[in-house]
């Protein structure tokens, strides 16, 4: 959890809003530091987190999480974190026939099906446990990242359906939050990705967009972060608020500064 980013977003783990969909988007740079931020943020806020990690392995998130102050292994054992490791599950699905439906079942199918098994998995993971004890504040779904599903053969519409179902369940029914990472392909014309990105950004309440600098690689400024608050349910009577910052990623934190105010330049 990056304290500076919390200040910019005006939230803390104690008083975060509920029922919100946050979209993380990266163009020409790597936006995975935002995923690590939100993962540690919601674990510290004592939420029940379902993490669909399609991009990297569990140990990667664990090691970075330890730098940010959360222990994923302990969280998983306690039941606070439900972790779907995409890479490992894909190997299981591919090489061994599964009896019960597996969340990544679509890998075995020739035609692009739908993501219903994945949705069932998420719903099962986040449903409130009967018994009365409310250990966790609210459920959170974290997806890293959605563009991988397109690469694995799903159509953009199927992925949008999945997001819609998840939003109805997690955000509206269970009053939880969702955080999704989508890559922006930029000038490479990836139509499916553009459809997906537009569709999700239309539904989201908060968009964090990490972009590489227009002038290329810089050692002191790694990129630019655009924050956009939206109100998708209400008609746009008020203007959406937008802020832009530049950032530099360090070993255990990320420092943010206004454009052109990098400490290296001043």
């Amino acid at each position, binding site marked *: 959890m990056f304290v500076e980013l919390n200040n910019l977003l005006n939230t803390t783990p104690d008083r975060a809003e509920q029922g919100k969909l946050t979209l993380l988007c990266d163009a020409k740079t790597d936006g995975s530091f935002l995923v690590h931020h939100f993962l540690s943020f919601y674990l510290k806020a004592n939420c029940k987190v379902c993490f669909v990690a399609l991009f990297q*392995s569990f140990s990667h998130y664990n090691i970075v999480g330890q730098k940010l102050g959360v222990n994923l292994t302990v969280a998983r054992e306690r039941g606070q974190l439900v972790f779907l490791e995409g*890479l490992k599950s894909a190997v299981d699905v591919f090489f061994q026939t599964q009896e019960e439906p597996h969340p990544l079942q679509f890998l075995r*199918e020739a035609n692009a099906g739908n993501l219903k098994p994945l949705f069932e998995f998420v719903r099962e993971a986040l449903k409130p446990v009967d018994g009365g004890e409310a250990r966790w504040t609210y459920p959170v779904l974290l997806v890293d990242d959605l563009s991988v599903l397109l690469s*694995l053969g799903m159509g953009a519409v199927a992925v949008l359906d999945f997001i819609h179902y998840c939003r109805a369940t997690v955000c509206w029914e269970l009053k939880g939050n969702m955080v999704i990472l989508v890559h922006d392909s930029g000038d490479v014309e990836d139509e499916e*990705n553009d459809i997906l990105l537009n569709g999700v950004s239309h539904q989201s309440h908060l968009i964090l967009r990490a972009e590489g600098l227009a002038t290329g690689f810089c*050692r002191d400024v790694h990129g630019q972060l655009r924050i956009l608050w939206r109100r998708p349910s209400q008609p746009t009577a008020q203007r959406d608020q937008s802020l832009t910052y530049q950032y530099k990623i360090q070993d255990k934190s990320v420092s943010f500064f206004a454009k052109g105010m990098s400490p290296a330049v001043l």
Partner: protein
Amino acid sequence: MAAVATCGSGAGSPGSAVATASKSNVTSFQRRGPRASGTNDSGPRLVSIAGTRPSVRNGQLLVSTGLPALDQLLGGGLAIGTVLLIEEDKYNIYSPLLFKCFLAEGIVNGHTLLVASAKEDPANILQELPAPLLDDNSKKEFDEDVYNHKTPESNIKMKIAWRYQLLPKMEQIGPVSSRFGHYYDASKRIPQELIEASNWHGFFLPEKISSTLKVEPWSLTPGYIKLLQFIQNIIYEEGFDGSNPQKKQRNVLRIGIQNLGSPLWGDDICCAENGSNSHSLTKFLYVLRGLLRTSLSACIITMPTHLIQNKAIIARVTNLSDIVIGLESFIGSERETNPLYKDYHGLIHIRQIPRLNNLICDESDVKDLAFKLKRKLFTIEWVQDNYLRQERNIYPPGFSYLLKQKDSAWGEGSLQHSTFLMSFLAKATAFASRLVRHSEPLKQTGSGRIHQAAGPRLWHDGRRQEAPGLLGIPL
């Protein structure tokens, strides 16, 4: 499945200290120290495998790519469990050399190899591997003309390659060396006995695909399915993922896949823009990366991306790989005659470096890199180094120079231009120049202006006329 072509009964890694861990759990990312940080909880003991070393940044286990210059640009080497994707150059001349250096490094270190190709028989590929340079001569810099065959005295102080004086002298115990990263001689073949002593598996697509059994209708081309099953089989059988209770393996598997995505693999992304199997390659890469992450293996893939019709697929493939390097050779392009690229054979672009177990990655600051295959060695250099070298030869420092600007390959404001200027500023001596060469006033031929000296610019007939270097102020 048809019989796997294995060769040799070579043992794992003779000659180096290999501490066998008691637990059979194997992780891709291991660290020094008592904290367990792998995918499964591994023992606190440090496992030392020949030809690997932990990364300085995050303790990750690295193997050499076979080119020490490339290792340096990648932050020390290729991490175990990752995929190195090489985008082939247009005529596929230099990418096979990188591929073979990777495999040769595996043989020299005693790693197990898995070579997959749809074009050539893996046995032939192994015969053509370059020979390693295993004596002390390999440490000298070759482009300084110091190459000789005599064994140098170890107490002669090296003047040029003084950094290498600090490296430990290596013992020559047979084919296996304990050094990380070797130099290879591209004109010689690897000795036959090294190949025979090594443990390798080959996958030649025409052999495997002919024995087609029932293939499930997954949306992957049959060639890819077979290759994945083959790789998974080897990993399981030889115990690289620690799941086989009989086999306790403490060696690295190097996988090399040649020309992936080309039509020879049965994939049509190079032929049609919206083929029937456009997700085949990306699915393959995903499952392959899943296999690698849970085993002690590293993979090199060469891919003819310049043939892929749909650019979106290239972007997806890049996202799904860990390290992506592009080779661009100058053959047939107009850059062949550019004086900036004299002596070089092509450019090497490092397109992507992964962030593994970390928020940051080891991105090198140098972006203009070129390679050359000179005197049997493949070297990678910063382009500006060559340029500065040329300039220092022509214009020795200590003099002040006037430059007549002709139509040259530089334009004003270009990087070459400013580097040239800076090379002079850097070497300008404090006391005045010993020789000043004057020339007649310049007529502006181009829009560039290199040297602004004392002396005002004159406007004459509406045209700018400059007389830099002259102290008088004519009017």
